[in-house]
């Protein structure tokens, strides 16, 4: 297997893909947002219980490739307990990682996604869950989409 590919499919990613964390619906959710990648058919819904400005609980469900599923799973572990502003900041870091491959200043599991940057077609997979989560935080009822072009 090439170095690029083993960078992409890091152990952390494979693990989250095989054993997703916080997967399923959230009966107590007060925010839900749905995201999709029209060309791949990847789908991801993020369910949140916001307690004031803080994410008290967060789950995701949907289907998609290992990158999108692992990213959504890992995201839920990172976002729990964060405020909307903190979530946005984490996403900005994550976006920087997946588009540049540069590791963040602080040690973070998110760095596992650095390998995505050599596969530009997969960036939208990695960010799908994040888009849904940010929309849920905004209370945006529209489905998030990481694509605008046609299939």
């Amino acid at each position, binding site marked *: 297997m090439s170095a690029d590919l083993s960078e992409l*499919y890091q152990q952390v990613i494979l693990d989250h893909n095989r054993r997703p964390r916080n997967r399923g619906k959230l009966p107590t959710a007060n925010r839900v947002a749905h995201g999709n990648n029209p060309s791949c*058919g*990847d789908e991801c819904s993020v369910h949140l219980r916001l307690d004031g400005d803080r994410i008290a609980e967060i789950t995701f469900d949907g289907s998609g490739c290992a*990158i999108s599923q692992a990213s959504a799973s890992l995201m839920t572990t990172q976002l729990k307990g964060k405020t909307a502003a903190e979530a946005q900041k984490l996403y900005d870091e994550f976006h920087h990682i997946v588009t540049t491959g540069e590791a963040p200043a602080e040690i973070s599991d998110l760095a596992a996604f650095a390998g995505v940057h050599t596969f530009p077609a997969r960036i939208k997979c990695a960010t799908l869950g994040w888009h849904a989560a940010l929309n849920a935080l905004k209370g945006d009822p529209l489905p998030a989409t990481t694509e605008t072009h046609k299939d």
Partner: protein
Amino acid sequence: MSDLARTRADFPILHQQVNGKPLVYLDNGATSQKPRRVIDALVHYYERDNSNVHRGLHALSMRATDAYEGARTRIAKFIHAADPAEIIFTRGTTESINIVAHSWARAHLKAGDVILTTEMEHHSNLVPWQQAARAVGATVRYIPVLGADAEGGLDYAALDTLLTPEVKLLAFTHISNTLGTINDAARLCARARAIGAVTVIDAAQSIGHARIDVQALGCDFLAFSGHKMCGPTGIGVLYGRRALLDQLAPDETGGGMVVSVTYEGAMWKPSPERHEAGTPNIADAIALGAACDYLDEIGRDAIAAHDHYLAQIAMEKLSVVPGIRIIGPRVGQPRGGLVSFALAEVHAHDVVTFADEDGLALRGGHHCNQPLMRKLGLTSTTRASFYLYNTAAEIDVLVASLHRIQKFFVG
């Protein structure tokens, strides 16, 4: 040199490495590669004949017009149309179907009418009908696909109940781009004609792979794309029976399609000009004619036989990959030259990304077939689609790659 080696030598693009491995191009269902002959036709046109058609009296314009109209005649012969005027150049299958959905369906359908199609249609042969139905208050009905893996093909027995007098149009795909199912087009057209319904065949997947005779099939309209039959992108055809095309109001209006224009209005030319407003895609139409020549020299029966040969090998070798679920016809049953499958616990995009490392070009996703995927309980599949230049050895590369992928993700 064997025939297959000679065919491969005709396609310059095949002889390259991808990720350090020889390219194995198995994405022909999306678009085919182009032989040197077709590429040369484009270059020749732009280097020697480029000019606008129909309006000029100078030498280049006459050469361009002759070549453009010659391509129309060539394509009419390719599908055995009765008259070259039955060939309308479009951008491709999607535009061709949309012309019928706009010009024919909106003029002839009314509230309460039914458009009949199938559960296995590409979005391009589905959404335009839904839109037309919505516009006139008609409904869309679907011929069911049989079997948990759609292995049973269309439910022809259901036609008895589905073909009611309200059905005014039947639109169906000749070969499914997702399942590989080959539909009995002549039978479907005959049944529709018996109740006076107009028929539209989506021949996107069959045009470059099998002999097509529109008169023997008995269809009213037939749509296809040049790029899936060794021709260029951006050019396709709407075939329509002359009687229908000459009545059809133009979908687009402008230059080139009018007999006379006054400040008050205009009169349309007959088909094909009335349906080709503006400067057409001259170069690509001419190159599409060259693609017809090429395919007929190889022989479409030989191509169909090669598809069948590769599909059967692929079915046998793929069916033993652990965790694989192949959709469409079972091993040994007839199918077009493509196989689409899901691997347990591995998403199609991960399969395609991994396979790319082995030089393989595959397609993963819903193949513009979302309702069918949903019906089969799938969100995506991986598809390998073959053409005249693919080899049995390339299928071995695919199978080896899938074993490796399965091992990596599932262990």
